């Protein structure tokens, strides 16, 4: 039987590992577990009442009005995910390719594309709120000045345009991130492979689809997974631009806002319900963890080791 003795080195390693482990346990593991626990109780404000089993989960999923609120927020998250997949990751890939090919001004554009990512979300949100202002906003004034007055809209006030306006702001804000990740992936492609392709064809399309896209698969895995997690945890932009209620009438409501409202209440409802809020948080967590795991393993499988 091997003996475990605390040698100098072992002691040293233990001393280094224990504090961060305690930190993670206290501030990450414990809150997650307690949120799980909270979800199984009935609450009155912040006072815990009886154990109610799965009642809270049942309520948020199947009892009106929570059922339609949950479905509406979930539906909006799905729209956000797919829209950003195209606008943020798709555009990011194209931009990265253009930067990688060193088109004129690439150096300047590399910085320009990434600059918005550095801005605080609050700043971006207020900036775009001003752009979309119905009376003085840049968008409406520009449209009017080029004779398209009838295209001028109260962008953030209509159910048809509000969510898309916020998605556009998000895409503008974050498009630099996938661009940078894709660009890094492209720069890792060995030049021998590219030279070999050049012998076969001059077509950019073939080059993208047969060489670049398969070889940046690891970058795609990263940005897809992060986008998925980000889209379902989306909070700051809709909170600032649409408000806690997902104004107008829930058309910008997402799971993050809905969870916050349910757990902590808002100006317009005196109710705070930690049980329902925690149940929602647990459901969101399980959903994100499960799907993210599937996405990661699936995408990993198609990565090629050079």
């Amino acid at each position: 039987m091997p003996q475990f003795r605390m040698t100098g080195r072992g002691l040293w390693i233990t001393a280094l590992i224990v504090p961060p482990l305690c930190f993670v346990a206290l501030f990450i593991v414990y809150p997650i577990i307690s949120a799980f626990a909270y979800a199984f109780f009935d609450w009155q404000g912040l006072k815990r009442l009886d154990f109610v089993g799965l009642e809270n989960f049942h309520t948020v999923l199947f009892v009106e009005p929570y059922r339609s609120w949950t479905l509406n927020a979930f539906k909006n998250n799905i729209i956000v995910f797919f829209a950003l997949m195209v606008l943020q990751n798709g555009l990011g890939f194209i931009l990265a390719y253009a930067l990688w090919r060193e088109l004129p001004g690439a150096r300047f554009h590399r910085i320009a594309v990434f600059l918005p990512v550095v801005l605080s979300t609050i700043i971006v949100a207020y900036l775009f709120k001003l752009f979309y202002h119905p009376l003085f906003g840049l968008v409406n004034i520009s449209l009017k000045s080029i004779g398209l007055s009838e295209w001028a809209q109260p962008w953030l006030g209509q159910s048809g345009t509000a969510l898309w306006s916020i998605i556009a702001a998000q895409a503008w804000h974050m498009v630099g991130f996938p661009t940078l990740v894709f660009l890094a992936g492209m720069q890792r492609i060995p030049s021998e492979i590219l030279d070999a392709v050049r012998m076969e064809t001059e077509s950019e399309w073939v080059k993208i689809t047969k060489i670049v896209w398969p070889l940046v698969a690891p970058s795609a895995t990263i940005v897809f997974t992060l986008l998925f997690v980000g889209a379902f945890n989306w909070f700051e932009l809709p909170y600032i631009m649409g408000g806690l209620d997902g104004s107008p009438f829930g058309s910008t409501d997402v799971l993050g806002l809905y969870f916050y409202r349910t757990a902590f209440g808002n100006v317009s409802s005196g109710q705070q319900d930690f049980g329902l809020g925690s149940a929602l948080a647990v459901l969101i967590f399980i959903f994100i963890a499960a799907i993210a795991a599937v996405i990661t393993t699936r995408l990993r499988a198609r990565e090629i080791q050079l």
Partner: protein
Amino acid sequence: MKTIVRAGTLLSALLIAAPAFAQDLTFWSWRQEDRAAYEQFIDTFEAANPGITVKFETFEATNYNTILSTALAGGTGPDVMMVRAYGGLENVAVAGYLEELTTESVPALANFAEPALAAESVRADGKIYAVPFASQTQLVIYNSKIFADNGIEEPQTWDDLMAASQKLKDAGIIPFANGTATAWQNETVTFGLGSSLMGKAFYDELMAGTADFTDARFTSALASVNELAQDYFPDGFIGLDYPSAQQLFSSGMAAMFVGGSYELATFKTQNRDIEMGVFAAPGKTAEDAKLVGLYFDGGYAVNAASPNKEAAITFVNYLASPEFGQAFANTLNNISTIPGVTFDNPLLAEVNDLNKSSIPYLMLAHFRYGEPSGSVLIQGEMQKLFSGETTPEAIGEALTTGLAAWYEPFKK
């Protein structure tokens, strides 16, 4: 060494014994901006009550409820605290954290108006848990200079109001500054403009359980509000948020603002030179009672678990006294709920007069006790109405069936 130990013992003995000499109260509030005024009120109180000291502590308004409930649940709450009214009060009071106040412990409560006390009572037992401190009124605020320049008087009928708005629009002035992109503004606009159209009789029947929101008086009021908004709110008002609307009014670009009496101070801060007047939005005819929407902000409550309960009650008695009410009205420019208070500020005096003919700000006062709250419903539904995606009749139906989830009189 010995001296240090001795000194330490003495010091801790003093610290433990100190409460026996002076009673230290902690007093929590979400009114950070009123700190200076409250320090002054507390000085007055301490001068009159030697032996009691009050420590005023403020917290950020939007998180106040959460901070307070957490502290009370953990047993570290303050002795005296500001609490919200209506549903917000019930969140803390029903959990048993607050001391019941009676006309025996706080005699001045006997003189308070019934609706003010109701705002700080729990519906189930009718017991009072806080001394109400201020009321707010939903009405129409107007720029008196613009009104005078265009020869417009305060309207006596709904048609007057529409005509005045048209006149302003023709003169190139935005009649109403309001926008409805910020959800809660929809509720303000609805009841700030519509209370007189709905009428007191509707309110009484609604409370008695003989009418619900499908009532024609209610739905036709919504239709009128919508008609006015479509014609006389700014272009694209459904995409206009609350701060922008405030700016439109305070900058003088718009003539009227439907909102709470709390806006008066904001407008004055944004534009020191603005001259304002207030009126209650009129009903159909000049004979219809002109009603404002009235509600109460919050109250002062005592922690049921406070070790200094007696001193806390003494302090709350001071907070219920006419002297305090007068100082409160003069320094903070708020409508004190304490009877007999007079107002230096002519606008506040006028608001106080308008309050005599009022109905409660409906959703806040009666329909924020369950999910979905009446406020959340009316806000979303009015946004739909303003963007042409529903009808007033459908709103009446949606409110009644939505509230039936928890509001007993609507359950069939």
